[in-house]
């Protein structure tokens, strides 16, 4: 569905206000996401996970420098195609709940998303109702404004918006931050349901343990590098099946596992 080859990204910064420098945020990143499965991107904050999502969606500032190639459904994905496809074929569930319009009820917002994807007004209304019901949002939640929704409900409204666009690639950026276990499981179930419908789902998160419950593959990122892509079942035991020491350290640092840190991973070449 989506293939990324040797993607690099540098963004400008201004050490003095008349001087522009570039800082590298993504370095020679390659990965591919297949239809009908959840692919998790895991890493610390600052690893470049959100920037990867913004690069795929074409949401970077104009003076960003990027290299490498993206392919979507077999054809090259350039900036023009990204503009044409986002909101239709490519959908982003953003990290910030402020992405919702504070002055519109949930049902209208989901309806708008369906209209933007090209549905008729009647079709959009119906699709919105169905999608909201699908994510267990009742009549009251459908008629609520964003500030009246809990964090988990707002996430599910955003997920419903991604679903009505009929997009075949859905990118969810930190969808479970700040949710209690019950709400978190509901949001993850919603993402797994999108994958079961045949969509490719990219789950960006720092929460390795819960990503593993729905993901088929996991890409571990560290400081702009893709450290390793492994099948989810390889995160098992002491992590002996994992290739990189960093992925093993990440796995072993979980409180259900060793909860200790082997600093050996700091010697690996991609951290130099």
């Amino acid at each position, binding site marked *: 569905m989506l293939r990324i080859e040797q993607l690099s990204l540098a963004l400008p910064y201004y050490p003095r206000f008349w001087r522009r420098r570039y800082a590298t945020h993504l370095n020679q990143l390659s990965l591919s996401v297949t239809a009908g499965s959840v692919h998790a991107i895991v890493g610390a904050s600052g690893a470049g996970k959100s920037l990867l999502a913004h690069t795929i969606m074409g949401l970077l500032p104009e003076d960003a420098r990027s290299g490498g190639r993206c392919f979507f459904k077999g054809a090259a994905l350039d900036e023009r195609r990204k503009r044409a496809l986002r909101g239709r074929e490519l959908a982003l569930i953003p990290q910030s709940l402020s992405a919702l319009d504070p002055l519109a009820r949930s049902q209208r917002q989901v309806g708008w998303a369906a209209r933007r994807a090209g549905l008729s007004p009647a079709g959009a209304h119906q699709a919105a109702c169905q999608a909201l019901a699908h994510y267990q949002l009742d009549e009251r939640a459908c008629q609520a404004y964003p500030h009246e929704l809990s964090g988990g409900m707002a996430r599910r409204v955003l997920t419903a918006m991604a679903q009505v666009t009929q997009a075949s690639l859905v990118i969810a950026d930190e969808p479970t931050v700040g949710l209690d276990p019950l709400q978190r499981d509901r949001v993850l179930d919603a993402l797994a349901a999108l994958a079961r419908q045949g969509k490719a789902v990219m789950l960006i998160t720092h929460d390795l343990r819960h990503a593993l419950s729905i993901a088929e593959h996991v890409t571990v990122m560290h400081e702009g590098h893709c450290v390793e892509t492994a099948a989810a079942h390889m995160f098992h035991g002491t992590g002996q099946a994992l290739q990189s020491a960093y992925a093993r350290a990440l796995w072993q640092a979980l409180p259900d596992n060793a*909860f200790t840190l082997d600093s050996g991973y700091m010697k690996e070449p991609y951290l130099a």
Partner: protein
Amino acid sequence: MLEACQLRYAFHAQPPLFEDVSLRLGAGEWIGLSGDSGAGKSTLGRLLAGHDEPAHGHIRIDGEQLPAKGLRPVQWLPQSPELAVNPHWRVTRVLNEAWAPPETLRRAFGIKPEWLNRPVRTLSGGELQRVCVLRALAPGVRYLIADEISTMLDPITQLALWQALKAEAEKRKLGVLVISHDAALLRRLCQRRYHLENARLHAAEHYQLS
């Protein structure tokens, strides 16, 4: 010894959030607190730190009331650090607000020197959380209420934060109440664990937590 006796708390004209809650936290002791969202965990934490008053019951440190002014000996560390700092300040001003943490501690908490002159809004949530935790460790602080402080961190950063805090707490005999949804984390960190449910505090061993 930080002692809470028969605390009762209610939001205006609503049934009490919890009642008859008693808790003792000794110097150097780590206690875990879990509960569903809305159960009142954070409110209990805020009461213990003296940010709010209980409707009934009292809180004592070694038999005395919490001081009304000056440095609070019980520090509440909230889940969202960005709401606990002045967004217009630079990192160094936030970090040195209550005391001047030595460089060894800055390093132990993973606070990089290049952050210091940056405005706080340029730090990520996880980076800012470490700044806030270190800020709260001023001399004179004896108890910490850590309210979901590692939820937004990846496993390695989470572990590093707890290791740094554990080492410092042991050295200074700080008592720590850890509030978290993560049962595995609480089992790792705390000798005793409680669960707040149906307005009461229960010993957590009987509860099968997710």
